[in-house]
């Protein structure tokens, strides 16, 4: 693995979507990111999108990472276009988890999340570091 010092140069905002109380994966992902040199700020479960936006602005975060496994991701992220339009959430948004309540609904829900303005839709936490690395490198180059 190459030099990962850049991972700590910007904060990340992590949390679980507004209607979802699943805490275990969130806590483990937080630990995993810290161990790999990232600097996540964890808002925890049941976090409305506006709180992600406020935290990202306060911390000048490079990305917002929203987890959801209860199937309500599309409903919980429906405010994203408004926040984008108002300029309240400018950084990339990464979604990870189960996008809908069953496997049959996942493709449509993934497409809907992208329509709402989610930049990356991930299935597994293992995909996070590479995506975050690309976001951080881009942010640091353009800064």
């Amino acid at each position, binding site marked *: 693995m190459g030099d990962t010092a850049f991972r700590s140069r910007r904060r990340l905002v992590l949390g679980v979507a507004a*209607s*979802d*109380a*699943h*805490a*275990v994966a969130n*806590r*483990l992902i937080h*630990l*995993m990111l810290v*161990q790999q040199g990232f600097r996540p700020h964890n808002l*925890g*479960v*049941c*976090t409305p999108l506006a709180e992600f936006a406020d935290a990202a602005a306060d911390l000048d975060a490079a990305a917002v990472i929203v987890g959801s496994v*209860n*199937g*309500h991701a*599309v*409903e919980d992220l429906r405010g994203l276009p408004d926040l984008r339009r108002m300029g309240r959430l400018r950084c990339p948004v990464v979604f990870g988890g*189960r996008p*809908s*309540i*069953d*496997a049959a*609904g996942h493709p449509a*829900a993934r497409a809907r999340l992208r329509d709402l303005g989610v930049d990356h839709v991930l299935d597994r936490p293992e995909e996070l570091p590479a995506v975050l690395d690309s976001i951080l490198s881009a942010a640091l180059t353009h800064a």
Partner: protein
Amino acid sequence: MRELIDLDRAQRRRLPDWSEIVDRLRSSTRDTAVAVLRRGGGRPALQPRCGVGGHPEMLALLRALDRAGAPDLLSVTIDSHTRLRHFATADRARRENPGQLNGYPLVAHGWERGRALVDAVGVPLQVRHGSPDGRDLFAVSLAAGITSFEGGGIGYNIPYAKDVPLAESLRAWQQVDAVTAALAGHGVVLERELFGSLTAVLVPPSLSLAMTLLEALLAAEQGVRCVSVSYPQSGEVHQDVAALRAIRSVAARYLPADMTVFTVLHEFMGVFPADRGWAEALVHYGGLVGRIGAADKVITKTRQEAHGIPTAAANAEGLRLARAACSPLLDFIRLNEDRVTEEQAWIETEVAALVEPVLNRAPTLAAGICAAFADGTLDIPFSASVHAHAAVVPLRDPTGAVRYHSPGALPLPRAALDRQRGLLNQRTGRITEKILADINYFAAREPWAAEPEEATA
């Protein structure tokens, strides 16, 4: 009755008079949930989870399960928006896209439709949810004629919400309990199931039992004399049977003598294997543990657990598998009773150490619970709530039993901690990797491999 419980004004206006609610519950000729549990029948009562957003779809689901799975009770699992009292969001979702809700929004659909659910099937219904403040949902459930309501002020707050102060959730559930007690005075005994599964991931048995015991004591303070205490299957059979037996022994020691306690096993709630046969084996195993542990009820799982919310057909198969596991054909199975007895004694010791300091804290039991969570002497692993320290770290020992790797500030006795450490000290590696491996204990095993690597490491 109405003076016992504070309800949302808009919801209260939609409800019938309390006298009508009580009369209907009293005069119903249907079995109550408690009647089913009292009748027993030589095996645990079996109940699946089930809940979908649309009303016609929910009716169809309940009917299909009643017909194909022959359950003893059925569930109305409530969607997450309603659990968090986001009634307007739930209402919009059920109008616009009910198929994408992860449960039945009973408050939004209203009590009249709830009655239709009750009338649709031949077995009693239970409302299962996860609301830190379930008062409005409770009132709508009663108006619907539903005789079983899950939850409590600890188990439905700390694992289910981010920032609801414990004092608030305890107060809300005290009101639910007060109404439950008053209804019993009218001859309507509700099933009040306390949720010992907590976050449902690597829950040490003594922690589960301590939380439900405290909730049962709070219920008893309000006059409740019948509770169901649930416990989540850990996956190690001696530990699980010991925990089910310990529910009865700690109840006998701490609860009023006239209190009825039903024991409930939640079939493994953690990460399920994707492989169908392996998932079915796990569902079967859960039924068997419930039978051996003499649980009064088993909440079943399905082979589709790894893939999201199950179809009615898969859910009915889960019931049939659990029933097969409860067959007298399997009565020849015997556990190592010495091992079960030893586990049970340790669980009892640990529960006493966790609960007794809380009982001695002034001024009230509820205040004592809040203070104990505030200083971490009550705590749960992986808490969703900011009102628990989440300093407890559990791990599995080489047999698969769940142990305390770190107790946080829990006041566990030295001897118990030494034993736990001794059981865990053969394990090496990073803590996050060990936790992940333990969470995936069943999911990660090759379906038909003889032993997990952990056991031989």
